[in-house]
């Protein structure tokens, strides 16, 4: 409401961030995991004094450097760019609190990049001992970038004591910091193994290929053994409402007993399980038969898991950017009360400026929709408002909005997924009026079929 709101038709702003993030996560986790992999594999080569492993590493490190220093770095900046466009209030809050933490991460990032280039350019130019030392330094620096950024990422889900004292250290070392760090490192090792499988599959000599394929496959194991432990630890630390969102679902949302989140969780588990089984029966037990195509299949599965997992992490945080502090739509939780008595369209800078030019009730309603709903919905694409409203008529929509406006989870069971609607009575009517223009088709269709209008909300408001 503070800023102009960027309208992204069909996919919505969330997916602009989402697409860039998924690619970035997959690459940056490789940057860290791959760093650990390179250091350990080089140690293996060093101890065995095996030139074949060295040759493999040279090959692999070229791919590594080209991928992480270019695509990794740029998609990282990309997340930043996209978040600043979609969620400027959220990013500004993070930056106002954690600038120096980011600055510190930047220092490690510079060290990491410089070491990556030095490592890559000095193959055969410095002694093997020195080169191994560079590999280890790279590993340490890249882990440190994770150590810092993990603090900011987990802060958004569990700000912990920061909520009380706004002290940066409490924000960084928040309740989910350590379990999340553990999970991420495990995932990184697995991703590193997957990437290295791709390089290994291209080795010509069969026996050495079998050796390397097997070695790389082992990197997939830790996450499956230790992952669940960290996952449970993680789940004990997140807000109860988020857990409810996963397991009980949103009864009234009409998606049945399984919430979308639970489905994503199961999907992610099934995919991971598939990877594990394949890794065990494929490259581990039967490394000779391993081919480039299978390696690529692993990568695709890995990307899918990364995608669903990141999406889940985002969903857990719903409806907040910073849990319990700032809603996804840029409204501070503490401001909701004042807004609902004084009105939304005269509060935020841009929202009120635009409202002065809105001449009809629908236009005002559209503005509220834009500022309070577009953060997660689109009119007719992703999480389509048209579909979700279904056959509700203006009155039913109004009743629905009345629920959305309540702060108490007992009378508003959307509190775990949607921000409390912050409007006054007149604005609520405008919003309902506007929304009823979106789903005209839907209503029309329902009337033809003869379905009864949705009365669920009427029931729950009566309660």
């Amino acid at each position, binding site marked *: 409401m503070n800023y102009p709101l960027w309208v992204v038709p069909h996919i919505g702003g969330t997916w602009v961030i989402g697409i860039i993030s998924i690619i970035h996560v997959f690459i940056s986790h490789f940057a860290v995991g791959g760093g650990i992999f390179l250091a350990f594999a080089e140690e293996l080569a060093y101890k065995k004094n095996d030139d074949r492993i060295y040759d493999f590493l040279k090959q692999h490190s*070229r791919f590594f450097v080209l991928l992480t220093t270019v695509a990794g770095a*740029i998609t990282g900046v990309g997340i930043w*760019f996209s978040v600043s466009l979609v969620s400027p209030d959220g990013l500004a809050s993070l930056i106002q609190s954690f*600038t*120096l933490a980011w600055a*510190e991460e930047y220092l490690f990032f510079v060290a990491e990049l410089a070491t990556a280039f030095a490592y*890559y350019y000095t193959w055969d130019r410095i002694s093997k001992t020195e080169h191994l030392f560079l590999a280890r330094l790279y590993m340490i620096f890249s882990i440190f970038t994770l150590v810092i950024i993990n603090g900011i990422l987990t802060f958004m889900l569990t700000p912990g004591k920061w909520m009380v004292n706004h002290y940066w250290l409490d924000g960084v070392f928040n309740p989910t910091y350590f379990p999340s760090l553990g999970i991420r490192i495990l995932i990184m090792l697995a991703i590193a193994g997957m990437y290295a499988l791709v390089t290994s599959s291209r080795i010509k000599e069969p026996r050495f290929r079998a050796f390397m394929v097997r070695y790389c496959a082992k990197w997939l194991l830790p996450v499956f053994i230790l992952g669940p432990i960290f996952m449970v630890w993680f789940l004990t630390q997140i807000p109860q409402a988020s857990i409810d969102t996963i397991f009980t679902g949103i009864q009234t949302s009409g998606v049945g007993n399984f919430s979308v989140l639970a489905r994503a969780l199961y999907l992610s588990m099934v995919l991971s399980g598939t990877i594990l089984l394949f890794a065990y029966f494929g490259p581990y037990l039967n490394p000779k038969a391993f081919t480039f195509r299978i390696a690529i299949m692993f990568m695709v599965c890995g990307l899918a898991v990364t995608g669903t997992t990141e999406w889940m992490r985002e969903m857990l945080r719903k409806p907040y950017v910073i849990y319990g502090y700032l809603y996804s739509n840029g409204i501070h939780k503490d401001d909701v009360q004042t807004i609902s008595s004084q009105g939304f369209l005269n509060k935020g*800078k841009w929202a009120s400026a635009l409202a002065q030019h809105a001449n009809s009730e629908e236009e005002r309603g559209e503005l509220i929709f834009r500022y309070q709903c577009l953060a997660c919905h689109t009119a007719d694409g992703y999480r389509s408002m048209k579909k979700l409203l279904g056959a509700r008529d203006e009155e039913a929509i109004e009743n629905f909005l009345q629920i959305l406006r309540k702060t108490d989870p007992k009378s508003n069971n959307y509190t775990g997924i949607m921000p409390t609607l912050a409007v006054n009575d007149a604005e609520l009517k405008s919003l309902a009026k506007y929304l009823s223009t979106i789903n005209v088709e839907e209503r029309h269709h329902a009337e033809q079929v003869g379905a009864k209008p949705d009365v669920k909300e009427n029931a729950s408001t009566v309660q």
Partner: protein
Amino acid sequence: MELTNLIPGYQPLPFPLPTWLMQLLLLLGFYLHALPMNVVLGGGFVASALFFFGRSDKTSYSYRAAKALAVSLPLFISFAVTQGIVPLLFLQLVYGPAFYTSSILMAAPWLGVLAILLASYYISYIVIYRTLKGEYSTKKASVAALLLLVMSIGFAAIGYIFTNNMTLMLHPEKWLPLYQQAATGMHMNSAEPQLAPRYLHTFLASLAVTGMTLGCFGLYMVKRDEKFSDWMIKSGSRLFLASTLLQIPAGLWYLKSLPPHLAAYFLGGDNLITTIFAASMLLTLLAILFSVIAALIGSKPAFIAALTTNAILILTMIINRHQLRMLYLNPYVKPDSVAVSTQWDLLAIFLVSAVALIAYLVWLSKLMLRAFKKPITNDDSTTTSLTSTTAEIAPST
């Protein structure tokens, strides 16, 4: 409508640093971004032209200079991107209300920067791996010239988009009409009178900095190949000289394109601003003088003098650029109004780490220098092609 009603507020949280320190880090960060960024922006075009002129003879100075530039470009791109993070962070912190807004208005091209950057960055590697490795041929050299041209057009577009955003953020009066036209972030700031001269100014500067870079390559290889080194210093200085002479009318045009009441600050209206502006004019004259000597007789001390003068000159220009932004935004964006709660502990950690990083980078550079003095130990290595090409530019065959 009152324009101040359109300026988003800061978040209800304190700043982690005093404002002056944030401004200082913004300036310093942008300086460190601008130097490599200029080499990227100008270097690609120059390398492309040099490949084109030297395409039929791989021993020609033109070809070798082109190769030296092309091989080092990915490193400069990497520095430019990494160093961009610092000013981005502080720009958002201090001028977020203006900068987020203008970015949202031009969201599509703004995100496009990343797509273009990704493509151009990879092209810079393709040039090395596909056209500079293995057997030389005239055709490969021409392909290199062409690829570098495509890459450079990409970087030039990125710079243009940046200039659009940096100027759009200065004009709150344009925001609402643009947004009302379309909320999908498809705008640019193309009607801005300042845009063309400002961009031209940056572009000419990037050619000048590329000239200095060529000269630095020349200095680096004095011992290995004196003649080539001499040629590099002379041609680099000439490039610098030519673009800096063109900069005089371009700069005047830029000054004239500013609203008169703001231009006045540079011409005596404000002591500090005028002093820095005068200093930059003086430094320009000096740099021209030194580079004339270096261009004519290839004098190394004269080149080094031009180089140093130019480095300070760029800094003064950047300070002036920042002051111009403050002049525009002072009535609207007021970072001083935000409470400050300095995170001393984290600041101390940051400063100590920064010093440690510098020490580490020095150590690493020494290691690299030592590594590249010795001949390579394993000749059939595939991965070291990049670096061996760097070494190849020196020995004349």
